[in-house]
């Protein structure tokens, strides 16, 4: 599974980086669970790279994939 998945939450644009004060921008990231890796695009601080995972993503798509991998 290597296709890029856009992992934004609806609300992500409302946040800025607390340390840098920068607006967040989409950036590539790799998610890993139980040996499987996924390339995704997540909102992150362009300056320091701090990456945001929204509740929507964590409890939605991410949780579904976690469960699938756990039962694989």
């Amino acid at each position: 599974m290597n296709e890029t998945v856009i992992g934004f939450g609806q609300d992500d644009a409302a946040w800025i980086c607390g340390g840098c004060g920068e607006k967040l921008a989409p950036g590539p990231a790799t998610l890993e669970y139980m040996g499987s890796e996924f390339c995704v695009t997540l909102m992150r601080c362009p300056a320091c790279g701090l990456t945001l995972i929204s509740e929507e993503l964590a409890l939605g798509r991410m949780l579904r994939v976690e469960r699938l991998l756990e039962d694989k």
Partner: protein
Amino acid sequence: MDQKGLRDLEARCIQEEPPRCRAACPLGLDARALCAAVAAKNMTGAWAVLRRHMPLAGVLARICDHPCEEACLRGQAGDPVRIGALERAVAAAPEPRARPLPMPKRPGTIAVTGSGLSSLTAAWDLAGKGFSVTILTGSGGLGGRLAQFPETLLPKDVVTAEIELLKKRGAVFKPYDGPCVDAPASLLGEFDAVCLGGDDPSLPLSLTAPDSTEFPVTAALETPGLFACGLGADDAPYSPIRAAAEGRRAALSVDRFLQKVSLTAGRPPETQATRLYTNIDGAVPLPAVPMADPETGYSPDEAQEEAGRCLDCQCLECLKACPYLEAYKGYPKVYARRVYNNLSIVKGHHADNILINSCMLCGLCTAICPEDFPMADLCLSSRRDMTGKNVMPPSAHEFALLDMAFAQGEDCALARPAPGVPDGAVKRAFFPGCQLAGLSPDGVMAAYGALRDLFPGQTGILLSCCGAPARWAGREDLFAASMKTLRASWEGLGKPEIVAACPACMDMLEEGLPEARTVSLWEVFDQSGLAVPALQGTAVLAPLDPCTARNRPGVRDAVRSLLRKAGAELVEPPYSGELAKCCGFGGLMSEANPELAKTVAGRRAAESPEDYAAYCAMCRDRLASAGKRALHLLDLLFPDETQDPAAQPAATVTKRHDGRAALKRTILREVYGESLQEEARLQLVMSPETAARLDARRILEDDLRQLIAQAEAAKAYFLRPETGHKLAGRRIGNVTFWAEYEMTDAGCLVHNAYCHRMRIKTDAKEARQ
């Protein structure tokens, strides 16, 4: 588990055993299915049931002498279902046109003599198998002894129609004009096998059934290739079903003879004893439905009503008691196969991990099952298998195992003689167990005080976890490690008797630390004459036995004795004592399958209108979470007059976690007079809704404190300018936690928290930390 182990296990579940009617039928007719079809007015389905089992069903269904009715369980609650009359009613309904299945021809020519029902059955079965069958008939009409049935019961054209069907199967009818059929040497020269039928007076046999042990099984006569059926004495009442069964028996032997295989080896029994158990406790006795016209039999409406009296015999006793067994749409035999298959899959989706991990391991099904089907053993051994192969889903039990480690760690664990008791002089050590310690630290303090008063100079305390979560998670390595630590503490105290509050702890201790004598706190309190305060308010209570007290009648009695001493009037709920039900915590169900655990607690809650009196801390908590009024026995023995103990809400995971650590500090301070430094902790403030959300997501406030402190220190958080909310995440162990919060004068106001197990591999800031 190997294939044989699976089969042995499957055989212990009796749900698929035949119902009594079917077991009693020499042809194995599925009368339960027939009744179900007729009750649904599905005559097409009913005809299909007849055709599946009966030769010449149009004939036999009208005249069957129904030995099934004698066996019918409905007879113990009213009249037996009139299955024979129902068959007749089906036969009277028009049969849907069947598509004749062309059978591939097989080598082998067979002569069947006579055209009685036994001969016709043998011919029916053999022609159906593709053999060339010739029916040699006598001078009378076709049907032999069938002619004795009145036209109203068995119309001639029905017999003719079934014989036409037999011809369509390929059977040929020929008048017999040879010598006496009792001396069929000539026939055996002409045909590969000969089956003599004895129920056709127009072609009589002088033969009687040979007096051998084999003949009733094989229908084989002494001469190889010669078989006989329908040999009942002419003056005996004619049993059509037995005549048909004998024809079928002979046909099976002819088939085996022509295939040159043993007539007896591996031959299925014609009738069998059934082990199916059906509980008819709730069955209202019902008489048979009368027939408006006995001559014509049941009308379709009457038949429908009569078929509706069928009890639809099933076992399913365990499913009636257990929401878990009910939830997966099968029964233990099916589950055993599914668990086996799930364990056998190497690559692919393990859809039944959840089945294995949701069992409460409480043993109620085994206690109920007439054959003691061991569902808990099956699930527990499967979990061990999975952890051994490293294929256990990590999320299933991780929180519980971390919680256990915390309870066994230095924040919570303690082993000490009471003040003034020298090391080695401890005769009794109080082991409250980690859940009671977390849920009721005050109650544990009071109980420890009471024990010190009852046994001055010989009491100690042992705070830890018994390792039950490790056992339930299939982690025998962690269970052994738990016991090793516990043993060292116990030996350090001078090997005292362990006074345990929780029956699950008792189970674990008796197994893992068998050298120690373990007794129940409740028995000690009851027998030592503890002063029990009179109950305030509610005087009617339902004692709530935990599943772990199933095999501990002494503990159950002591609890009831204490409740009575308090002045309670006891109303036993269903499922108590040996049939105690789990609250949904057992086997870590509430971790692996929180939704189902909620259903379980809700059902348990609904089983009694009275307030429950629990003596398992988790039972009390789970019942409270289902909105049920429930108190714990400690609340009653050491009451807090300011509170209604039965109304206390369920505790969050944080409350249990923090309560355990607080208990140790309180004991050290108040009992042992130690002055402890209380660490300044970040004050978290949140709404009850947020607290409940954290609880459901298994997020500890301690973890949020850690992540917020880190985020604040490193300024590694997101900020929402219009609200001032901050959002920060941190990996702790195998989980990434996120908190949305704001710092206020009153502390840190937590608005939300969530977590995920997937890891961000490339996060610059996280990498830098």
